[in-house]
């Protein structure tokens, strides 16, 4: 299949060579097209950080009905390939856009911000003392000292509260960015996301100690 320039929205239909502008099907011959890789454009959405997830789900279902490989079983190999490609972009896009954190990271990346994993490992200065104490408690738990459990449970509640606060803060920043389109707001969002990721990692460590069995998914044989 011919890949087209992701930056451009206009390309030629592989089937009838008509001009296609950013749509999933050729306006001339109705043939399915190679997908646009930009998730917002794919879903026909404005690039906003705050999204109505109900509307997103509705669009996802509608596009699934049009693009899913089940619908192209009796069509040409070329159309089947387009359907497979388009469905994967649709599903990947839905997975990213429906989750506010992944959505924000996606927009940051597209706007040229570096959001490497490594940033989640630097301890935010205001948490230094807390992390130091937590690590001691975690060590005790790992050493089999059940007396550390209540402390760990407290820590879990505290981190969960923190994460909720962060999510509220993010909601605020999302609305701010959608109105202002200010890159400075994106920079702040990146900082908050890093802090959130750090706290998420702490929570994961705590939960792993509190319920070791439950954090393991099923056996894959």
């Amino acid at each position, binding site marked *: 299949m011919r890949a087209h320039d992701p930056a451009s929205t206009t390309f030629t239909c592989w089937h009838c060579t008509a001009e296609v502008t950013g749509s999933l099907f050729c306006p001339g011959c109705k043939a399915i097209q190679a997908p646009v890789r930009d998730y917002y454009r794919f879903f026909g959405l404005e690039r906003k950080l705050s999204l109505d997830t109900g509307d997103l789900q509705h669009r996802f*279902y509608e596009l*699934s*009905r049009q693009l*899913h*490989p*089940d*619908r192209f*079983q*009796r069509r040409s190999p070329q159309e089947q390939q387009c359907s*497979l*490609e388009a*469905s*994967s*972009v649709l*599903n*990947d896009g*839905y*997975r990213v856009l429906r989750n506010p954190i992944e959505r924000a990271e996606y927009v940051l990346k597209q706007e040229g911000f570096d959001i490497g994993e490594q940033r989640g490992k630097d301890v935010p200065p205001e948490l230094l003392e807390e992390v130091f104490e937590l690590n001691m408690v975690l060590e005790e738990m790992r050493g089999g000292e059940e007396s550390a459990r209540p402390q760990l449970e407290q820590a879990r509640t505290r981190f969960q509260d923190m994460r909720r606060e962060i999510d509220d803060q993010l909601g605020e920043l999302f609305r701010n960015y959608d109105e202002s389109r200010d890159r400075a707001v994106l920079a702040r969002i990146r900082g908050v996301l890093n802090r959130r990721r750090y706290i998420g990692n702490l929570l994961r460590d705590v939960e792993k100690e509190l319920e070791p*069995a*439950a954090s*393991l*998914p*099923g*056996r*894959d*044989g």
Partner: protein
Amino acid sequence: MGTFQIDFGDQEKARVVGIDLGTTNSLVAYLDPAGHPEIIPDAGGRKIVPSVVAVAPSGEVLVGHAARDMLITHPERAVYSVKRLMGRGVVDIEEELKLFPFRIAAGSESVIRLQLGERVMTPPQASAEILRQLKRNAEAFLGEEVRQAVITVPAYFNDAQRQSTKDAGRIAGLEVLRLVNEPTAASLAYGLDKRKQGIVVVYDLGGGTFDISILRIKEGIFEVLATNGDTHLGGDDIDNLLLRVAIEDIESEWNEDISENGEAVQLLRRAVIRAKEELSYVPQTTIQLEYRGKRYDRELRRDLFERLITAIVDRTLPPCRQCIRDAGLSVGEIDEVVLVGGSTRIPLVRGAVEALFRAKPHAELNPEEVVALGAAVQAGILSGHVGDTLLLDVTPLSLGIEIMGGVVSKIIPRNSTIPASATETFTTAVDGQRHVLIHVVQGERELVRDCRSLARFDLQDIDPLPAGMARIEVRFLIDANGILNVTARDLRTGREQSVDIKPSYGLTDEQVEAMIRESFEKAEEDFRERQVREARVEADAILAAVEKAKQNDAYFELPDEERQAIDRAVNELLLVYHSDNHILIREHLERVNQATLHLAENMMNAAVRGVLKGTKI
């Protein structure tokens, strides 16, 4: 010369059947003209084909009920529960080999080779025999050729297990249009009529596998939110446990260890399965075995049975809890629970499900048939007979690639709706490097050694460049069957990059091709054998007729040379009779015919004369 047009009409209307290729039993279903899924019975009216394959001492391959009888008489020639061996290596199944009568042939590291009498079969070939039987049943019932199928697999099957199932279809001469996850198929069978909306849990405990899937059904879309399970947990485990207990019990009673005796073990296995099944309906039963004049009777009450199997049933609970968490739901948000698989008939299982989900589970449809029925619905969707229903399934396991230090970098998380994809860019580490090897794994753990190795992809013929200069974009795409496809592109040249795939488990494409050829050859061999047998039957008939004619007056009226010619022809036919050459047999059969032509004519005339004489006009 006339022209002709290819008619694609038949192609479009071509029949697609739905197949449940189960651990214990297999079924085939189709959509009837009214659009309802129906199970297709065999010639004897039975819906279930036991998933047992055997090779008779004559070399004939038996499937289903006939093969199940062989399991008792020739346990070393039969294989059951072959699904548990699909997509696995010999180290994976060491534990079960202790209880199964399978003999493993040499060279079983990445694909198990089963020794069945003189034949060696891989699990996909054994499964192909079952599929071929179902195909034959469907063709006899529908009165038309069946070439395309939807086959169900456990939702928690990994890539190699799925690929093996697809290979089995190809070997059986079936185009597998889609692999559908069993619990999702079941939800289709349940949800179709009722136009359901809401959150549905499917709890599927079959013969060898356990799956849990949570779906949102809305506007005709069946969206799987999360799935979990254990591809090695099912009724088989309960049978094996009871079998172990009974073997020890018998040893203390008879002072004899029967565990090495295949026939006794298979008889006892049948007895414990019968006891297990009865305990779903009555509070107590007896495990009975009669063997070589000895008799074993052990009463088993349901409460003891339940205590014995609690640990097995409890193993289904952590995957359920994880699945609810992954779906982002709480128990209260679940609208319905559906039971699938024969093992859900066990009251203890039903109780455990009810307690966990705090809802009375549904089991209106036969839990053994519902998966095949759902497969037929999916077949209808693919062939365009079912319009506004669409299934959106997920990949059960995260897909990752090996990075430095044996660590896994996840690129497609579990429970992603499929088709799903990820794109990664790779480069070279050494000047002039021509290859890059990518190791792909499936699983949730952080280290490669704790995940399932899927395949190694070798990016070949990279232009020699200074280290780090090459840029190869690799696209990992999981298709609607849950099977990984990998393509690569050189970003500098835009050229398609060749990728050589070395699957860690299962068959290579070449091996599958060889097996398809072998199955054709086998079919040819079978065909030849039948031809020989038919020619001999005809020879028998003509030889008997000649013997009888020799008593007739007409024979004695023949000239000597004609009588000698007949004897010569008969002698030659008797000579070639035992050759394996049906053409030769038929040739000499024809010579006997020619030699007796005059005799037959004379006999006919005499008969006509006789009739005329006796007739009063």
